[in-house]
């Protein structure tokens, strides 16, 4: 049903946009939290969790008590949960989704007999496979019991299983093949799970006995934290890309300062220096009682030999450190590098990207396309006083000065990109010109007279040659 139709039926409806990425992040957090009931847990997107509780149930005093604890813990956090316990992940999934609440399948039970009443959807199959099975008349798990190979007539069962295997012979994925799913449920085929492993964020913090109110003390604390952070990162073989500094004030206020680094770094003095530039506007109030430094984004950075040559260490900074210092003061958007993009329109043929990112491969330039050294951000309109019969201006006025055109090369016609612009966009005829004093410009005429896309074409100055 469309949202508009639903609103027509029920005007009080509250609509919330879907957030699949946020849901997955929440599920990951839940999977880590669910490791309280077993050493391993795995995601079952979009809304399930698998926990391996082998040998852990006695800690809660039995499997029933364990399931009761799960229900209570989820209810305490406002989560609606259906839990089930079984020897295999497939059986537990089937029971949790289609079985009675808090169902437990013991290790000695016959799964086919106990789960026979569940629909075939309990096998975790894709929708199209379910449709095929429905057309074949297979509706419940008990209908598939005849192909399980455990029965009174092994020969007939093997023939039936063979027929089903031939039907799904092209389906290699477990979710598309009911026989594989059935074998997984009966634990005849191993089903590896991808466990979720917690990866704690590198963190260093200081709780201060006396709240600090002065800048030099704060600088000292930050440099201590940077040293701790560097040690933590070094043990993990990583370097920080993003660092967050949290300052807890006595009155409960939390101040957050965040810096991003151009390359992974593990240099305490560099980190301290970058934060020193961001701490100028901190209002300490009645004092800061706790300071925490976290590396919320870190990248592998191998241990390297420190410079043996003392002069090389003292002499100047590295490129990444220089870019960090510039971007902390000027903002991350200010430091860029120009890269060529696939377009003929001059302002689109050039993009700006972060300086240390790899340059994307691009097509080579044509040698006869002479481009100006500098391109104006917006092409400036020029007033053409007298145009020669060939089409280019002989005399024009730009920025209040009259210029006499002496030499011309052109036109170079650049058509609008019809796949991107409106159909009324006009083409451009570019001319390289040189005026009487030797100044070289790149001008263009937008459109041609009589192209049916506007009146008399305008002239613009777009670039300056060296």
């Amino acid at each position, binding site marked *: 049903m469309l949202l508009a139709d639903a609103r027509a039926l029920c005007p009080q409806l509250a609509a919330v946009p879907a957030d699949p990425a946020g849901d997955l992040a929440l599920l990951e957090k839940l999977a880590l939290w669910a490791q309280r009931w077993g050493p391993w847990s795995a995601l079952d997107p979009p809304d399930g969790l698998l926990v391996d509780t082998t040998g852990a149930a006695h800690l809660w005093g039995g499997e029933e008590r364990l399931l009761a604890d799960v229900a209570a813990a989820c209810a305490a956090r406002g989560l609606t949960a259906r839990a089930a316990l079984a020897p295999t992940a497939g059986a537990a999934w089937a029971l949790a989704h289609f079985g009675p609440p808090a169902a437990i399948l013991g290790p000695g039970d016959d799964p086919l007999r106990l789960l026979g009443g569940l629909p075939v959807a309990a096998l975790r199959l894709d929708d199209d496979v379910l449709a095929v099975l429905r057309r074949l008349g297979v509706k419940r798990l008990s209908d598939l019991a005849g192909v399980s190979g455990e029965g009174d007539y092994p020969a007939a069962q093997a023939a039936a299983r063979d027929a089903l295997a031939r039907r799904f012979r092209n389906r290699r994925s477990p979710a598309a093949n009911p026989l594989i799913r059935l074998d997984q449920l009966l634990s005849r085929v191993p089903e590896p799970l991808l466990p979720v492993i917690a990866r704690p964020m590198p963190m260093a913090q200081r709780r201060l006995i006396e709240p600090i109110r002065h800048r030099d003390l704060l600088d000292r604390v930050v440099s201590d934290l940077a040293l701790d952070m560097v040690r933590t990162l070094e043990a993990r073989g990583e370097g920080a890309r993003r660092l967050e500094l949290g300052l807890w004030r006595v009155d409960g206020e939390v101040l957050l300062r965040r810096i991003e680094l151009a390359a992974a770094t593990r240099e305490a003095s560099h980190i301290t220096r970058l934060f020193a530039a961001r701490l100028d506007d901190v209002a300490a109030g009645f004092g800061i009682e706790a300071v925490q430094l976290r590396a919320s984004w870190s990248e592998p950075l191998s241990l390297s030999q420190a410079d043996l040559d003392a002069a090389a260490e003292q002499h*100047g*900074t590295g490129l990444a*450190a220089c870019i960090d210092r510039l971007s902390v003061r*000027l903002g991350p958007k*200010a430091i860029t590098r120009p890269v060529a993009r696939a377009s003929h329109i001059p302002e689109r043929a050039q993009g700006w990207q972060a300086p240390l990112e790899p340059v994307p491969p691009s097509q080579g330039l044509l040698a006869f396309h002479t481009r*100006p050294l500098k391109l104006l951000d917006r092409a400036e309109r020029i007033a053409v006083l007298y145009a020669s019969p060939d089409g280019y201006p002989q005399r024009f006025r730009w920025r209040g000065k009259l210029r006499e055109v002496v030499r*011309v090369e052109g036109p170079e016609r650049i058509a609008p990109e019809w796949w991107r612009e409106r159909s009324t966009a006009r083409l451009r005829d570019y001319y390289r010109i040189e005026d009487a004093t030797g*100044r070289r410009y790149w001008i263009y005429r937008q459109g041609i007279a009589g192209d049916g896309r506007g009146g008399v074409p305008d002239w613009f100055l777009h670039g300056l040659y060296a």
Partner: protein
Amino acid sequence: MSSHLSFARALSRARHESRWRPGLADQPFHSEIFASGDEASAAGLALALARDALTSQGEGGAEEDARHVLWVQDRKAMQLGGRPCVQGLPPDLRHRLIHVAAATPEDALFALEEGLKCRDFACVIGEIAGNPRALTFTTSRRLSLTAERHGVRLWLVRLDAAPDLSSARMRWQARAAPSPPPRWNPTAPGTATWHAELFRARRHAPGEWMLSDENGHLHLRPEPDKRAAAAPDFGDLVRPTVGRSLAARARA
């Protein structure tokens, strides 16, 4: 001891030629180029001087070419002259340019100083429009000292600025000059040529030159009238060969 000193002095005197010419070994670390904001000749001359210094400094150093070039502009300079265009840059600089768009002259000066401190930059080019209050003699002296200490060269382009107090070692006044006609299309603009006037230098006498950039080397162009006298004008070489051969015409 004294002989060593006098030898060094003689050497330094020999190295300090009074008349500047392109391709000198000891290029200054801090130069200023003044030009009008309506033309890109100052930026072009700065790039040409930088490439000339880089090629004459490191003879065939492959690792020299990997270093980046920092180009700092303040907002007014970007409004006046636009930003660098990657397709219009010299081919050896296209992939190693890092551009800093500073909002104020103070930020631009900070970026220049940080860039000079970085050992991974081949050179630093700055563009500052007008005479901002932040750019005093003290600031320019800071820039000179930083550049000399870290060995990174700085070319500071001053657009629409009056030549006020500065500690730059060489100060140029640049303007565009009519270019020589290209070989195959005499009506088209030719290779960029600048009229450069060295009006203040520590080691060289002031002078004026017509300069152009040819494959990374500064090229000294003769004055137009001299060139006309030196090179005889054969006119159009195609038409007279209809009746007589070119050799016969040259003999005649």
